[in-house]
């Protein structure tokens, strides 16, 4: 497997993150873990945006990933983190394969609203499920990694952080290849001109379907990691504001590069954390202005700051 420049850079940044994890304070580790896990969900949103579809219901797969990890540990004795995360992705894939059959018939606002509807249905079901703690959700069982049980608290937090960084790296490399591979480019082609894709003998619907299922798996991984990191899951994960946040972060980062959602999610988490701390009642407003500023000044997202500098150097 030959690595290109982007992949090597991603690898080095991931390594730096892991090392940073050994010296950084616990609160920062936690903030970064959640941010990176969310970034994985956002990657799913971005994959679909590339194909021209905006999912306002990616919280569905975030929630499925989280709840599968939680339920696996509580009810089915699946305590191994990797097994639980994989199971979460598997369940998300199965659900996406079913919903995708319907969703890929729709475009634009209809797709957005329908994806939202499905996540709200899950929200409704979870709120009604007393066994799953209703609106309170439930705690995630202590977990192990290849038979080794990290000590509760700092130890397990550090382990989740490392797992999240490694997952993030693997996903980033795969998505980087995916966007340049046949399906990735042709999904963009679908966004640009569906009629032409059809007349090249391809099925736009099945391309969008494949993309939708792949995006669901990635987002579920983010949900599973969040569940491991916070030790708790609740129906809020499938609520529409959660999905809105993922779209927000996706727009913040832009579609320019596979690293953009990670950067955007970290920026988002810091802005929100500090806004809540210093101006508790206006943080939504601050996020609103941030998004407004990005849309007006950086319509291609934060990533354009990075790529603009690069073109500047070349000129």
């Amino acid at each position, binding site marked *: 497997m030959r690595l290109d420049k982007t992949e090597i850079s991603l690898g080095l940044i991931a390594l730096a993150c892991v090392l940073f994890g050994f010296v950084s304070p616990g609160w920062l580790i936690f903030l970064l873990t959640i941010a990176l896990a969310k970034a994985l969900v956002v990657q799913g949103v971005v994959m679909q945006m590339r194909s021209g579809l905006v999912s306002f219901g990616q919280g569905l797969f975030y929630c499925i990933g989280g709840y599968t990890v939680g339920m696996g540990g509580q009810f089915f004795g699946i305590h191994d983190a990797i097994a639980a995360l994989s199971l979460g992705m598997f369940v998300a894939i199965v659900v996406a394969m079913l919903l995708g059959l319907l969703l890929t018939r729709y475009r634009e606002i209809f797709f957005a609203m329908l994806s939202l509807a499905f996540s709200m249905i899950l929200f409704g079901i979870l709120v009604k499920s007393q066994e799953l703690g209703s609106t309170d959700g439930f705690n995630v069982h202590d977990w192990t990694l290849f038979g080794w049980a990290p000590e509760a608290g700092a130890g397990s937090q550090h382990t989740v952080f490392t797992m999240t960084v490694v997952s993030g790296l693997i996903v980033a490399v*795969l998505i980087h*290849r*995916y966007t*340049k*591979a*046949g*399906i*990735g*480019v*042709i999904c*963009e*082609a679908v966004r*640009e*001109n569906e*009629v*032409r*894709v*059809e*007349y*090249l*003998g*391809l*099925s736009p619907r099945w*391309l969008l379907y*494949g993309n939708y299922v*792949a995006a669901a798996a990635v987002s579920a991984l983010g949900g599973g990691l969040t569940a491991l990191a916070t030790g708790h899951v609740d129906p809020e994960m499938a609520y529409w504001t959660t999905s809105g946040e993922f779209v927000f972060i996706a727009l913040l980062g832009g579609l320019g590069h596979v690293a953009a959602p990670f950067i955007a999610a970290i920026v988002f988490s810091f802005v929100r954390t500090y806004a809540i701390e210093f101006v508790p009642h206006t943080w939504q407003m601050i996020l609103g202005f941030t998004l407004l500023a990005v849309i007006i000044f950086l319509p291609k997202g934060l990533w354009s700051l990075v790529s603009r500098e690069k073109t500047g150097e070349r000129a």
Partner: protein
Amino acid sequence: MTCILETRSLNKEFGAVIAAKDLNVQINKGEVVGVIGSNGAGKTTFINMVTGYLKPTRGEILFNGKSIMGHSPRAITRAGMARSFQVAQLFPEMTVIDNLIVALAAAESARPSFLSPLRSDARIARAEEILKEFGVENYRDSLVTAVPQGARKLVDIAMALIGNPQMLLLDEPTSGVSVDEKTDLMDTVMNAVRQHGVTVLFVEHDMDVVERYVSRVLAFYSGEIIADGEPAAVLADQQVRDLVTGHRPTTKQGNGAS
């Protein structure tokens, strides 16, 4: 002579508008057929129906002797019938070469790869050959939106040919192109087509262009075919002169393309 495309009493109504009325057409392998007709005569509707984009109200369409009624455009494309568009249908945010590379990948497989790069060396090399063949190599890395109309039309046709079709339907390949460039454009297209041994049907408003390339002309008027035969005979037909060409010899400039 074997028939490649046949329609039997093909009808299409849009509400009260009859866009196709009992069209009975037989196109033989290797023919180059010109389709003429004034604006709104039903030429595009005919192409849209035989390529599966529009569902006929009634009738039957046979491609290589087999019915293709109700087949999707992609199934019909895969079966060997390709088309170009009155307004070039490209991927506007991609470069010219990327447009061709996407078409090459699509021709290779209906299931694009998940991880191996689309822009492989082999595809780039092949795309460059095609750029040369169509004389648009100067626009290799231009966005298609930044390319002149004629070149865009050529890229559109090149993409249709990449799938190695047996039959090619061209909807006004020279529309939007200046009169002097029309012949160059058609020469390029017809050279490429001859190399592929493709049966061609093309819609054209300019009778000089029609006469130069075709072996047969179909004249459409108000959803009907009012004449079908050798170019000289059709263009001399009184009805065609009255309803379609408008007594061409005196108005040599021809019709405005749209």
